[in-house]
Each structure stands twice: as structure tokens, then as C-alpha cells.
């Protein structure tokens, strides 16, 4: 299987370990990722605050590039996914909004490719059975709270997610890796996203609540599929102590027994090695 790959700006910086683990895990599953040539920033959590058309046209240019490449576009970043999918949704609905968008980009979109989150690609394209077959070192004893955040699931008409209030794909994936998935009620609560920079009191409060609720539910760690969620969960807590947070691709790599896991995890601000060693999940 071959897909166009859109890393997004965070995966070149704060979320480098997400990029590295995503690429390595995809290679292990025979998913060929072709970097989208000359991709641009999707506008992230900033453009939509300032200008509606800008927030749609920036991601739309990437859709046109993906269509020219002839491959569906996969992105690990939940924020990029949300912006790209929202642009795709607008273009597919047609009408004056779509024409305005195509005019701003300077090229038509024929609707021949679609946008996938990497998590979605794992579940729907690769398949959970294929993932499970690849597991060499099950994550036995690892109690995780699956944290989806906002942008992978909402709004439903854009994401097409069947259960936006209680998504289960990440839970299912983690179970196939051998982890113990802890039920909790805060899967899709917000981490504050870029409020961490503009109104940090908000993010600190939201993150404190998420970590407290995950702990009360009995989780030893959180699993994320979003660089904003991961960064906030690690950086907006008062100290670097407490439950570590993992990108789902890192846990896939660990369970697959892939080289590289140690270097990905070494980039975390909250040290995950103590927990993993206590469960004999890493040497």
C-alpha cells in the first residue's frame, strides 16, 4: 500500500518522535509513505481565528498536490487532519464555497483522493489483524487511557466518525498490542491546543484535570494521536513527574520490537523509561 504523507510542521520539531515512529511503523507494515512534495502549513489552530478563507485555502493547496500525486493523503497530526478534512469537505460539497476556494488556490480539486489520519489508516486500511500479526513483544501489564482529543473526531460531518462522543479505534488498536485499556470518560475532552501559548492558565487547568481523571481511572499512562495533545500533556503539568504519555505509533513500535523506540522515547519531557522497565517492556 502506498500513501502520500503529510507530516505537518510540528512533526519537524516538537513532535519529531511522532514522525520517526510513524515512518518506522509504516515501513514495518509495508505501508509506503511518499512525502507530499512542497507541502505547506495547513494553518493549524491559528488561521481560522483570523480569516475563514485563509483557513480553508491553505490546506486545499495540499489536497491539490495530493491529487496530482495520485495517492490518498495520510497525516499523523490531528490538527493537520482536521484542517485538511475540513477543506476536503468544503470542496466536495461544491457550490460557491468550493469555487471560491479553488479560485484562491488557483487549481481545481477533482475529488479523486481523500484525507486520512494515520490512526484511521491503521484501522481501516492496514487492519487490526495485520497489526496484531506483527506484534512480537506484547505490552502486557501496561494500563493506558486512550486520549483522542477533539480534532480527530469533531465535527462528525467532517470526520465521518461513527461514535464522536465515545470513539473506540485507538482502544481496539491498543488491545491488539496487548495493552490493558482503561475505561474513562475524558477521551475527547480538549487539552486547550494553542491556548497553552495565548492563555496558559486555561491549558494548565485542562491538563491537570485530564491527568487526574486518567489516574483515578487506574491508568499508568496516556496514549495520544496528536502533537498538540502530547505536548500539552507533557509541558502544561506543574513538574515533569507523573504518568508518561505516548504517541500510539511509539507503542506500536515497542510492541513490534522495532529499533528506534529508545531514541523516540528519549525525546519525551516526561520520562517513560521507569514505567516501561518496571513492566519489562524495554531493556
Amino acid at each position, binding site marked *: 500500500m502506498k500513501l502520500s504523507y503529510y507530516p505537518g*510542521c*510540528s512533526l*519537524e*520539531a*516538537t*513532535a*519529531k518522535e511522532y514522525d520517526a515512529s510513524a515512518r518506522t511503523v509504516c515501513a514495518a507494515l509495508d505501508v509506503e509513505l511518499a512525502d507530499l512534495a*512542497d*507541502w*505547506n*502549513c495547513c*494553518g*493549524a*489552530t*491559528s*488561521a*481560522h*481565528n*483570523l*480569516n*475563514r*478563507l*485563509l*483557513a480553508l*485555502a*491553505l490546506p486545499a*493547496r495540499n489536497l491539490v498536490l495530493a491529487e496530482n500525486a495520485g495517492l490518498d493523503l495520510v497525516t499523523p497530526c490531528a490538527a493537520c487532519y482536521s484542517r485538511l478534512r475540513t477543506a476536503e469537505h468544503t470542496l466536495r460539497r461544491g457550490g460557491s464555497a468550493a469555487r*471560491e476556494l479553488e*479560485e*484562491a*488556490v*488557483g487549481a481545481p480539486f477533482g475529488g479523486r483522493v481523500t484525507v486520512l489520519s494515520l490512526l484511521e489508516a491503521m484501522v481501516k486500511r492496514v487492519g487490526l489483524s495485520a497489526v496484531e500479526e506483527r506484534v512480537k513483544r506484547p505490552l502486557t501489564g501496561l494500563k493506558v487511557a486512550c486520549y483522542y482529543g*477533539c480534532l480527530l473526531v*469533531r*465535527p*462528525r460531518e467532517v470526520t465521518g466518525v461513527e461514535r*464522536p*462522543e465515545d470513539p473506540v479505534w485507538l482502544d481496539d488498536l491498543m488491545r491488539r498490542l496487548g495493552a490493558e485499556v482503561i475505561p474513562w470518560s475524558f477521551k*475527547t*475532552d*480538549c487539552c*486547550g*491546543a*494553542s*491556548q497553552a*501559548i*495565548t*492563555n496558559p*492558565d*486555561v491549558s494548565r*487547568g*485542562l491538563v491537570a484535570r485530564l491527568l487526574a481523571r486518567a489516574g483515578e481511572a487506574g491508568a499508568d499512562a496516556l496514549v495520544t494521536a496528536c502533537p498538540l495533545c502530547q505536548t500539552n500533556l507533557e*509541558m502544561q503539568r506543574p513538574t515533569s513527574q507523573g504518568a508518561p504519555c505516548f504517541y500510539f505509533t511509539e507503542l506500536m513500535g515497542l510492541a513490534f520490537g522495532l529499533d528506534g523506540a529508545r531514541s523516540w522515547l*528519549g*525525546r*519525551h*519531557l516526561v520520562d517513560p523509561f521507569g514505567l516501561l522497565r518496571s513492566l519489562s517492556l524495554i531493556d
Partner: protein
Amino acid sequence: MSEVSGPLAVDTAGRFADEVRRRTGQPIERCYQCAKCASGCLVAEYTDYRPNQILRMVQFGLREQVLRSRAIWVCSSCQACGARCPNGINIAAVMDGLKEMAVAEKLAVPEQGPLFHQMFMDGVRRMGRVHEAAVLARYKLKTHRLMADFGLGLRLFRKGKFPLLGSRIRRQEEIERIFSRALASGEGVTRHEAVLLPGVLAGSHGKGI
């Protein structure tokens, strides 16, 4: 600017509500104050107004109070409110439209969000991509927080998360086209780069959006 002002004044002509409806495409008149949005709003405790209050204030034409509020900027667009609204109002889209209006009418407080978002988009306009470290450093410098957060920046640098150089795209002219068209589309709101946040990016940042 509406002629009505003050906490109890009502814009009986509904001009502000009409403008918000036209700009966002959202049926704000349907809101009947069930407050489902507010009960699920995670940032409500940090704001001056709840989302249902903002909608009511828009219906009542309390233009200045709405556009000066912290609530519209503390909204992080998590979209829980819209997902649960029984009347199908995408409240995050309403908030985005209100933010555009607040900036255009110079009622927004730059430090509540617009300054950062503008600096972020300024980077995108120049490079086609965001160099996170550079945007954050510039923002911290502007808000006099550079030294206070220097230690954290250093930790990120040591973890390899703050590369010194950002990447840029090749066909930058295509990004410039998008910015030009989008700013021209702003119904007079973001028509010219200097209009968006006058004065804020003067000097070293000549070319804000």
C-alpha cells in the same frame, strides 16, 4: 458600530445578529438557551461569558460587549458545543466569525490570542511552513516572556525539538496568492495587511497578515 450599547440595550433591528449570521452561515436565531453548549464547555470556567450567553448577546445586538469579550478568544475550537447543539449551530464557527470582527473593529485584546495567531500566520506567509521555535521566541520576546520561558526552550532544544532552522517551501508564490485572495475576501475586515492588527506588528514585522 451599533447605536445601542450598555448591558440592557437591545438592538431591535437585529443588525448585529444579521451580520454574524451572514458572515458565519450559522442559524443563531434558533438558539433557545438550553445551555447544552455551556454545560459541556471545558473552558467556560475561564471565560467572562458562556457560549449560550454569547449567542444571546448576539441576538440582542450587544455588539461591543461580545467583540470585547475574552470568551471568544478562550474558545479553543474543540467543537464539543456544536456537536451537541440540538439546533445545529456550529458555535465554534460563530466564535471564529466574531474573532474576525473583533480584530477588524480593533476591539480585540492582542495578548488574548490575536497577536500570537498573527505572528504564526506571518511565519506561514514568509516560509510556507511554521518554524515553531522562531514563532515562539518572537512571541515571547514581544510579550516580554522570553527570559521567563528560556529554561523550557533550552530543554526543548536539548531534546532536539527546536531545530535552529525551519524548512521552507519552493513555490512560495502560491502561498502569497492564497494570502492575497483571502485577505481581499475579508468583506473589508482583513482587506489589507496593516488593517488586521494595526500597530502590533509595526517595525520588525512589516508584513503581518
